[in-house]
């Protein structure tokens, strides 16, 4: 077979090994300390996966931005903005009763997210403003809009039926159930994987991150690709925002604060190159799970949230160090 191809996926492989190692360590600790298994369906899917799902959805979009050599800092603010729009349409201005109305509200939330992404894409494609700065500005605008729209107070008391999008389960049997956010994550994961591996759009995004001049000379409309990339990130953030709204039973203008950091961390820990040109969706999934397992594990160890932030920072440095070390060898 093709050894080169295997070597290409080495960073993902190592991330996967790291994830397994973490799980086994925690399994051991958990068995000794609590006489309870860490590696169980309930813990990994209901607990860890659900906890990271909404951020992992954003990470899937972020993967494309980073792949193309850019970044999107506005994702957390888009979560809030699209969330409060959805919440408002569900509660204060229902277009229709029941799920008909919810659907419109959800669609509106997704549209708001995509529109914010479109704005990012326009700036990146048509100006020389770097993505870092463009999305930094949008981050402020979207967050501000969420505050203005809600006057700074959460839109709470959403109907229980709607909250299912964030809190609910798909019940397969009595004991087997999948959280809705995890299902959303899987759907977004497969869609993004397909986009990256099987469509021209994914190929172009990767090519742009490698060498934009060559792509331009190949007659490809680079601007269009940029706009699509940031619209995709916006859409993912919108999906996440709507689900977060259900999870919190309210539209919070403070939702998604600092989420861009975890999304970027997922991509990088999963083996993506922060400078662009090489990112995988599968690696991003692993990266998100590693973050989830670390969070859960540190909780289990009884570590305070504040200390967890410090640990997470170090993990990221180690992940990137390992990666650049790998690069130098090859």
């Amino acid at each position: 077979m093709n050894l080169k191809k295997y070597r290409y996926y080495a960073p993902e492989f190592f991330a996967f090994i790291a994830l397994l190692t973490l799980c086994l360590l925690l399994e051991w600790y958990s068995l000794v300390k609590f006489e309870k298994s860490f590696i169980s369906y309930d813990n990994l899917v209901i607990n860890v996966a659900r906890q990271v799902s909404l951020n992992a959805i954003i990470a899937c979009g972020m993967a494309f931005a980073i792949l193309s050599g850019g970044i999107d800092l506005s994702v957390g603010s888009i979560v809030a903005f699209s969330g409060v729009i959805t919440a408002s349409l569900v509660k204060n201005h229902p277009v229709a009763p029941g799920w008909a109305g919810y659907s419109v509200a959800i669609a509106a939330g997704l549209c708001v997210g995509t529109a914010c992404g479109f704005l990012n894409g326009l700036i990146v494609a048509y100006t020389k403003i770097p993505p870092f700065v463009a999305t930094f500005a949008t981050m402020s605008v979207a967050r501000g809009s969420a505050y203005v729209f809600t006057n700074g107070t959460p839109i709470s008391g959403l109907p229980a039926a709607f909250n299912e999008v964030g809190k609910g389960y798909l019940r397969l049997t009595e004991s087997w159930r999948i959280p809705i956010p995890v299902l959303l994550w899987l759907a977004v994961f497969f869609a993004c994987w397909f986009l990256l591996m099987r469509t021209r759009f994914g190929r172009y995004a990767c090519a742009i991150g490698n060498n934009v001049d060559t792509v331009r000379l190949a007659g490809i409309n680079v601007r269009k690709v940029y706009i699509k990339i940031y619209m995709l990130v916006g859409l993912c953030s919108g999906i996440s925002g709507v689900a977060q709204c259900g999870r919190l039973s309210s539209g919070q203008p403070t939702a998604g604060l600092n989420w861009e950091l975890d999304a970027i961390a997922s991509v990088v820990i999963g083996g993506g190159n922060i400078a662009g040109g090489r990112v995988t969706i599968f690696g991003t999934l692993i990266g998100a799970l590693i973050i989830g397992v670390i969070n859960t594990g540190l909780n289990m160890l009884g570590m305070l949230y504040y200390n967890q932030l410090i640990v997470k920072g170090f993990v990221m440095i180690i992940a990137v160090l390992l990666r650049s070390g790998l690069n130098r060898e090859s």
Partner: protein
Amino acid sequence: MPDLEKRSDYILEMKDISKFFFGNRALENVHIEIEYGEVHALVGENGAGKSTLMKILSGAYSKDSGEIILDGAPADIATPQDSQTLGISIIYQEFNLIRGMSVSENMFLGREPRTMFGTIDSKRRNEEARKWLDRVSVKFKPTDLVQDLSSAQAQFVAIAQALSKGAKLIIMDEPTASLTTKETETLFDLIRDLKSQGISIIFISHHLDEIFEICDRVTVLRDGLYVDTSKVSDIDKDSLIRMMVGRELSNEFPPRMALPGEPLLEVKDMSRQDVLSDIRFHLRKGEILGIYGLVGSGRTELVRALYGADRRDNGDIALGGAPVEIRSPHDGIKHGFGFLPEERKLQGVILGMSVANNVTLAAMDKITRYLMIDEREELKNTEHFVHSLNIKTPSAHTVVQTLSGGNQQKVVVAKCIFTDAEILIFDEPTRGIDVGAKYEIYVLMNELTKSGKSIIMISSDLPEIIGMSDRVLVMWEGRITGEFDRAKTPLSQEAIMKAAAGEVAA
């Protein structure tokens, strides 16, 4: 200085200098001697070894063998710092100045005068700078920002900086490339002035007229070998050109078999302000049209405008008699142009992606079914090219970065052909490629034209232009100054060189 007596007739002697890159000769047993207070020209075609020799002198490269004698004493130059300490300064084409800083800040970067507190003494620095700037007689102030200066003025700053470091020998690499005629005159006045102060200058230029105007002696290199040194007053331009190109064309090139057919492409009145003016030419089916010109003559700009990669102010492009509109590379590809750019690694290939991904990049619609990439189709097409162009790669999935330069270039050719291009624009197709691979590229070009494709080839390599082209256009300062048809008269290196130096051919 205790020893005021000259220990030698020469300030610099370089003896038997050799330098090989991966077994390829860059220099072999080259020698050059520079007298005190002399302006010495160093000439030769692109790739003759001028830059390598100067880089050895300035410490950027290390020599494989040979000896450097400075002021009569053997000099050991291992780093650029060494050469500076020994009083050698090189003024590069792209001046090593920081645009956002002032003239004096640049001149004393890293050796700023300090106050008693250890902070930078700007006042003294500006005074010092003023002193040296006066010596090159310029009007601007030490506090002016470099970005506000013209390129001529920036060059004067670089020279003043060299003098302030105690330079006795200044190397000027194509100093007039970006200067106007008037600025060139000012520079020459300065050179004469420096000369009278006993400073020696090595002057590298493609502009032969300048050599006859300002230089005392000239040393000619060719293919990494020493040809001759002579007094400028003893020779004329024709003999100088003969020395530069002297070699006979051996069987470096496969014989041209293809016979050009009827005219295919017609370009009229193409222009772009300050870059191209009044460009008109045609291209016949199955023809290789060579475009020769010195760096900055507008050849790359011309083909980029043709392909749609650069804008143009005017210009009608007609294919088979029908006018076409080309405003972007997308238009160019649509109308059957394929472009192999000069900077292979920066613009030709995507180094981090596979051979297959590179080959199909510009025509992905051909391998897309129902919005999905058909990877089997992609592989099939790539393998076809790997076979027909003889691309040496372990597999179609191999990352292009790991291929040799010649094979990377073939990947770019495959990419162009996969877009169904009929007119292939090759900008320096063999630059940075070793000799054997060059021959393969030439054979490939012959086969392409035999199959009915037409090629526009830009090259700085005169033998290559003559060995491969059916017809040659020569450019100088954005205009076409000569057209030579092999079917009418044999292509002459001298005539092409003259046209490239701005003499309009009869």
